[in-house]
């Protein structure tokens, strides 16, 4: 704990060594987080480094009494991913279908290995992957997804439906459908 505090203090003094240690410590978890939303390694790294840059710039604002550092960093990096997703709105071409029914908020990935999860996600189109990840893996509500991705509610629902159709295997396997 004391060592962790030293790292934090070093990061506040803009010391490269401390920043490096913090980066290495959370790198696997944050890489996994980014990989939920992006397939491309370059996109993952861009989102991760942009997020970590925000972390290092604002490390002085971190308040341990309000939550853990991991959660704070996790949130910043996820927001970094969402920023990129929003900026790439043109790429996320979706079909708008009002009639798409809402889906039960059950996580079909519960108890599934990370490699298997990423295997399933790789079968989804980028936008569908984002919505699916946010909904099932991150626990966002449809409204939150709409706010964070600037998508309409119907579109989000459509993506969720699309993900169910494309991931029938895992739904069937886990009897969630």
């Amino acid at each position, binding site marked *: 704990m004391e060592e962790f505090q030293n790292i934090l203090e070093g990061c506040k003094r803009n010391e490269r060594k401390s*920043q490096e240690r913090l980066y*290495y410590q959370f790198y*696997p978890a944050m890489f996994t987080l980014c990989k939920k939303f992006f397939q491309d390694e370059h996109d993952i790294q*861009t989102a991760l480094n942009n997020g970590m840059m925000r972390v290092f710039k604002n490390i002085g604002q971190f308040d341990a009494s309000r*939550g853990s550092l991991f*959660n704070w960093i996790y949130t910043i990096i996820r927001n970094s991913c969402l920023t990129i997703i929003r*900026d790439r709105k043109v790429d996320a071409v979706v079909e708008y279908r009002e009639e798409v029914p809402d889906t039960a908020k059950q996580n079909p990935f519960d108890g599934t290995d990370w490699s298997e999860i990423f295997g399933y996600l790789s079968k989804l189109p980028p936008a569908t992957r984002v919505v699916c990840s946010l909904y099932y893996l*991150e626990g966002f509500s449809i409204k939150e997804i709409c706010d964070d991705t600037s998508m309409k509610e119907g579109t989000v629902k459509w993506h969720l439906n699309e993900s169910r159709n494309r991931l029938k295997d895992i739904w069937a396997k886990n009897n969630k459908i």
Partner: protein
Amino acid sequence: MDEKDRHIRQQPGDAYPTPEVPAESAWSGMRDMLDQEMPVGPSSNSNWIKIIKLLSALCLTSIGLIYFIQKKANHDPHKGVTDAPTTLNAVTKLNKKDAIVIPKAPGIISIKEPDTEINAPGKKHSPEETAHPGPPFLVRDSTDPGKKTGNRNSERITTLKMRTSTKASPDPHVPGQPDTPYHSKARQTNETTKSRNTSDDSRKLGLSENSRVQNSPLTPIVTYGPAENNKSLKNTIGESGTHPIDITKKGKITLSREKTVTFSKTTPADAAHEAGPFLISMLTSRPAVMTHELERKLKRLSIQSIQTATTSSKRPSKSTTILNNIHAGLLWNVNLPFSGYNNYFRGTNNTTDFYKTLIPGIWAGKTLSSGNEILIKVKPYSQQFGSNRMDTSLTTVRDTATYYYTTSRGLLKSSGFNLGIQYNQNVYNGLSVGLGANLQWQKNALLSNQVKSSRRNTVVDYEPFMSLSQKTDTSGYLKPYFFTGNLEVLYAWKKVQLGAGITVPITRLLGRSYEKQKPVSGQVTVRWWVR
């Protein structure tokens, strides 16, 4: 934060798959971004640079201290009688077996013996031997009163002569009789030496002092009898008389049928007349590069170091000899850019600081044979000019969602500490060609900086003069140091050496550039011989 925490399904202690991108590679990109956005202060090699600077400062201090001590020794008030009016800067070793011919050198020439034999404990000397103890002979050329050496040795010699000569014949030319005119003259001469040392124009005054001493009937220019270890010489002289021989005039001593000692003495005026002002000037203040010329003029004289003469009584240490053979002085060296002079006086801190170009360096060198020399140069401020070309290959990409920035830089100039070694080959009289290698630490640099956006390829930021310090350059754009080579032609004029040439970087100036910038510059050098 609390609100978002409920959507966090990961924990730090969970088992995560190994990322496809290695952490080292990812951190490398992260560090580049941090260097751009949040540069840190001191770089990792700053300690090393500090050590180098400290060592250089110690070297400079040592050189200054040695010079100060040596100069103080030159002004030692305890001057010996024998050497009082004289200073030697040329020594000829005479071959005992051959006829001893004293060349006509300018200034006073004295023949005197070392006190090695005199000091031998328990050795009894006959009155003749005591009065005229032993050789080998040394011929002293004493035209340069401004230079020193041998003073203490000479004092010893004089004291002994004074103590032992009471047994000798009461010849007025023999030093050492307490109340003889010689003694008083010696004191007088000593005083004149002191006054000469304080004289502004020591060279001219020294010559006149020599003349006065020379014209005195009690001149200390006296040759004594035979060598202790030269029996034939001792016997011959002993037969011819035990009195010292005054060589204030030309003369000849017949040692045997085959051997004759021929000597000649010229007054300073005669010497000046015969040798000419040029030679006098060379003897009195000869720079090392003119030694060969001196030897050419005085064919029989082998010009050696001053310390050779002092070995007559006490051999100096090797380190002292080396130190006395080292010359030193100040150095002004400016690089002239071929790419233009627009930023010549613009400092690397983006302010006008033309005075920095006037900061002198120092040099120390050793003269080798035939006037060649090798020297070390230390310059606290040295400029190296870039090619003024924007280096587009230095690209810093800052990824965002849809576009990126490209940073391009052009090196205008860099400045820092310079350490060099140079060999000068004498080609003709004072003309020499120098070839050197230099190591320059880059402390600061002046750049032009441009940031372009990939969106519509527009320039979003342009700084024509941006200052970059090695301390803040965490991106490694500037190399901490680089090597250069220089070639120059030098001309020696009195105590000044003027040179012109070129400087070529051997290694790259920039660390992050794919363009291997090695801009060639001209250079002008002024070297001043302090000693």
